[in-house]
């Protein structure tokens, strides 16, 4: 059907996008690789020669490394748990008949559109400030001592802010998936006397399986890269330094480019492992 001519035209038209993305991927990536094998301190002597794998071993043996991995895992894991569980429950609720469904849906997904710096600053100041924050007022009403949220309970606070941003995403995707469920199947199960819990466990949850997997994979990729929220709330202090933030500090704040680049390579490998799983699911869908 497609002629030889249209084939070469097609290749030509794909070229700009392919070349741009190839450049975007290869140029910075090879530079990061290059720097990762060098002792490179732009402000203190510049390029100080090749050091082999020293940066790689120094990055993982520094005292900040394991805590940052732990912090990353706690943030990603907790946010995933919260958003998926509440996302499923909320999607189930929003799928029920009610008045004003459209408006409620709009209210629920709104936080997703708030830029990260705004949501972090609003939470930090207007809600979590230990003197003037709304939570402090609320605590005082009950006679309790206001909490220093972002220093005493820094991780839970951060998890709350990030979960607030991502719950709408999970809910929206799970709701879309629930709505594609064949309602006759549910009705048949109901007629056969299956309890609501059984219907949820044996029909709805298996149907949602793929959507949940996709939510987990996509969110993981974005959550591993959480940056602005930490940047404007704690600046990495009080045990909130994630792997991403540690690399950022090594590269731009302490200008130890070699060390930071080695960390960057670790982050790229980690993200690629997760991306591989996501690609497989998306690819399968492409064949269908």
């Amino acid at each position: 059907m497609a002629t030889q001519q249209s084939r070469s035209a097609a290749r030509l038209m794909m070229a700009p996008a392919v070349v741009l993305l190839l450049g975007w991927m290869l140029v910075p990536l090879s530079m990061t690789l290059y720097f990762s094998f060098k002792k490179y301190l732009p402000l203190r002597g510049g390029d100080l020669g090749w050091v082999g794998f020293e940066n790689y071993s120094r990055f993982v043996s520094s005292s900040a490394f394991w805590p940052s991995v732990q912090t990353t895992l706690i943030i990603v894991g907790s946010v995933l748990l919260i958003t998926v569980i509440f996302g499923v429950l909320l999607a189930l609720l929003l799928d029920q008949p009610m008045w004003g469904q459209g408006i409620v849906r709009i209210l629920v997904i709104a936080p997703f559109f708030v830029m990260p710096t705004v949501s972090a600053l609003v939470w930090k100041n207007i809600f979590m400030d230990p003197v003037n924050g709304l939570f402090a007022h609320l605590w005082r009403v009950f006679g309790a001592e206001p909490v220093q949220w972002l220093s005493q309970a820094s991780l839970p606070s951060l998890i709350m802010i990030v979960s607030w941003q991502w719950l709408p995403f999970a809910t929206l995707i799970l709701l879309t998936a629930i709505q594609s469920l064949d309602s006759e199947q549910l009705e048949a199960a109901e007629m056969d006397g299956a309890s609501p819990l059984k219907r949820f466990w044996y029909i709805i949850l298996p149907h949602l399986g793929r959507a949940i997997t996709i939510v987990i994979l996509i969110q993981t990729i974005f959550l591993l890269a959480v940056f602005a929220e930490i940047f404007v709330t704690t600046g990495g202090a009080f045990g909130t330094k994630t792997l991403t933030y540690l690399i950022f500090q090594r590269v731009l704040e302490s200008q130890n480019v070699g060390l930071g680049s080695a960390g960057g390579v670790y982050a790229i490998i980690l993200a690629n492992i997760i991306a591989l799983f996501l690609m497989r699911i998306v690819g399968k869908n492409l064949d269908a």
Partner: protein
Amino acid sequence: MARAVTQQRKIINTVLAWVIGLLIFFPILWTFLTSFKTEATAIADPPVFLFFDWTLENYTEVQNRSDYLKHFTNSVIIAVGSTILGVLIAIPAAWSMAFVPSKRTKDILLWMLSTKMLPAVGVLYPIYLIFIELRLLDSKIGLTIILMLINLPIIVWMLYTYFKEIPNEILEAARMDGATLKSEIFYVLTPMAVPGIASTVLLNVILAWNEAFWTLNLTAAKAAPLTAFIASYSSPEGLFYAKLSAASTMAIAPILIMGWFSQKQLVRGLTFGAVK
């Protein structure tokens, strides 16, 4: 009887959903309300909800003190510019993948997506260095190009899924009537794909508007869009809740409105068509 039960359930659903919905929306609502208070009212104990003297002075104050409009314009130029640039590059690519597929089309599409997964922090320094060399640091052009590149995979992907839905026969008919490739794409395909292109533009403007890694790291006073401008409020002087709220409200309002119109496309765009 059965009807009464369902009516009762509907009331419970409604109340429950509204309570949860308002709870989730509350931080945005509260920010909006605070933006109309004086700084003193904004921190009043107990907090005032609706009954205060509404004022617009925070909005004028934010503009006068820090030239808010400049950053707003930067955001518009960067978000819209990067999206339009991306769409122009992506339309031909998506066309060829959708209508002249080869054995490798699928691999190319997946590879494009995989570039989206590259953690930004891993290439932060190279990009920083390139920007210094090319004098692009703190420039709108530099940021527009970066945001175009990070959103290009999503743009190609979305356009591809929309183009796929257009029947090939229509394009073949145009070809039979002697349409050139150029007129086939611009006069036959593009008009039919307008809804798809529009929602692609909408979603990507939203994503570019809210991008907060490159905008924070590659800009300073001159080219800073709203994400970076708002971040400057993290080291405040004196009372600033009402002003922060005013600046925040203006930063999120346009995107909130666009977002509400793009709910359906959002799912499709962000799951790469895996959930429809």
